[in-house]
């Protein structure tokens, strides 16, 4: 059925009248023009803008350093009454997390199918790294993988995310081209897109009841960003 359908659909599309097809859109040129029109932002301004935009989405930004972030996270967990914190035991951050003495540290170490009820009902918070941030919109970029599965940033009511301030991009386009998502010369144009890539801007929300905003619709009720900056930027 589906192959007949396929042929019929494609045949109908191919037999439709075609005028002169438009040239390929110049998306690079569009963003280059926009970039040239606005004064370039320095690092401090980028950090400021990111914090301001993220606050607008009710994301809580906490400035930390390379050496104290795990300790800050421990303190936040205490303050927020977190008794179980999901983390990836194979990640680069695992050692620091384990050394910080965080209460109820819980590795995501088996397929979700084996422990769904516990994940959904008995996990207070999840901790993940990020691949960068976007200042224009106050957005985190996450590429979940086998070390940091997808549900860590979705199911627990609080999501802690570690973001390095040197990974801030001005906008979505700069982030995807800067990180070569759709492939580059080196990868011979082969896409690097992972199983799942995510942009996250604040905790989950809805305005479906009388356009009144409510947080914690289906995902996290709180999003806390540990923004790693230099000592003097704290």
């Amino acid at each position, binding site marked *: *059925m589906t192959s007949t359908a396929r042929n019929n659909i494609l045949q109908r599309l191919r037999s439709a009248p075609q005028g002169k*097809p438009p040239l390929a859109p110049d998306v690079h040129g569009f963003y280059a023009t926009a970039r040239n029109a606005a004064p370039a932002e320095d690092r401090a301004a980028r950090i400021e803008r990111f914090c301001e935009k993220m606050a607008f989405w009710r994301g809580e930004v906490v400035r930390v350093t390379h050496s104290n972030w795990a300790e800050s996270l421990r303190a936040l967990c205490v303050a927020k009454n977190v008794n179980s914190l999901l983390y990836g035991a194979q990640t680069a951050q695992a050692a620091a997390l384990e050394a910080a003495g965080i209460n109820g540290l819980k590795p995501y170490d088996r397929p979700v199918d084996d422990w769904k009820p516990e994940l959904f009902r008995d996990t207070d918070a999840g901790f993940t790294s990020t691949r960068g941030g976007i200042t*224009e919109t106050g957005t985190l970029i996450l590429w979940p993988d086998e070390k940091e599965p997808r549900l860590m940033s*979705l199911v627990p009511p609080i999501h802690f995310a570690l973001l390095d301030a040197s990974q801030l991009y001005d906008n979505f386009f700069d982030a995807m081209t800067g990180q070569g998502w*759709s492939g580059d010369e080196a990868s011979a144009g082969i896409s690097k897109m992972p199983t799942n890539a995510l942009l996250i801007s604040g905790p989950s929300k*809805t305005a479906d009841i*009388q356009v009144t905003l409510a947080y914690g619709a289906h995902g996290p009720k709180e999003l806390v960003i540990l923004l790693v900056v230099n000592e003097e930027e704290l």
Partner: protein
Amino acid sequence: MSAHENSQPLKFIPASEFKQRTSEAVSDELLRKSFRGAMDFLMAKRATQFPDPVALEAQRGLAEHIRKYSLAHLPDLLEQLERNLTANGIQVHWAENAEQANAIIVGIAQKHSAKLMVKGKSMVSEETELNHAMEAVGIEALESDMGEYIVQLDGEKPSHIIMPAIHKTKQQIAKLFAEKVPGASYTESVDELIGIGRAVLREKFMTAEIGLSGVNFAVAETGTLCLVENEGNGRMCTTVPKVHVAITGIEKIVEKLEHVPPLFGLLTRSATGQAVTTYFNMISRPRQPGEKDGPQEVHLVLLDNGRTQAYNDEQMRSTLQCIRCGACMNHCPVYTRVGGHAYGTTYPGPIGEIISPHMMGLAATHALPTASSLCGACSEVCPVKIPIPDLLIRLRGEASHDARPGHAPLVGQGAAKSALMDIVWAGWAALYTRPALYRAFGWLATRFRFLTPPMQSGWTYSRTPLKPAARSLRDLLAERKRK
């Protein structure tokens, strides 16, 4: 097979019923208040996102260009998408109409002995009435978007493509939850109401075997499905169950990943006045070896359902540029007054008026393109610059005459043809092309004006009757000249 036999009317909605529903809707005060309030709010929020009209024009120009370019290459891009998705491990299915799409999805669900399907927001699955097809074989199809959950609980359909429950007040929702959700007590607190929905649906995400979602953009070069949402239910549906089925119209495709940011930026700003949604979810593969969550199987169903009919005509093809932001509804004076249900179609408002005739045929939908004052607000706000009023006029014409030479007839072509109207227009043409006849008519009309009937069919439903003036303009001018 001709270009349009694939379009199947899902529900027959006679034009007369549309009229009746609209007059009911405009006299429902609560409904009008809900829509007026919500639309004013959405319009104001959108406006704050576009403070600079020059910049907005540049963005719309680029977005329109991307969509036109994608459509010009649609068959090639569909094949490229299929190749890349398949290489990534995502199974691609093609459906010419709603029945085929539903059969594919029912088949997948039955293969996995599914009892429950959780659904993220998907207007295309509303279009195919998937829920009925699932329930017919004993599989529960549960909407998980808060708005859709609410309307489903009340046995209704969405009244807006972005805000499905916008026609309801919180008191109505409070009552609904107290009656229908086991254990829920009456509360008018929006936070508590959302909390009730959250608790119910979390249990369902855990147990459902299948998750269904729509698609906002499908990227051909990388084989990526993009989903836009605020709530997180879309991520739940596409991550927790062991099978994920995505369904989309064949037009929602772009060639390159870099084509996505300009469209995404305009979509959310135009829809709800947000610079970005909470989640932008890009899916390229099923669960890979070593990964601990995500579905083991991912399917994409590509649906035609009349879209190739619109594609077959270069003017009407622009209908398919749509990115379903809903801005045309929010700004439509008719939609704001009659609300989404009056249209009786999956897609209400201006976009519904131009897309539904292709999906359901003109016989069922010819009244819809007349539900417009042609004020042009819709095309002014449309982020991809669809000339909606031009298309409305075109469809009104197609409904009232046979196909013009060189054009394939649309499904339901000429459905609103009326012999009386043809005679009236023929008479009008004769009168206005023959000066002697025109003068004679003027002479008679001014003298026998007392003969005009007081009831003039549609005109006098809500207007005073037409009556020729005692003296024609020609006479008045001639007299003035003589003086």
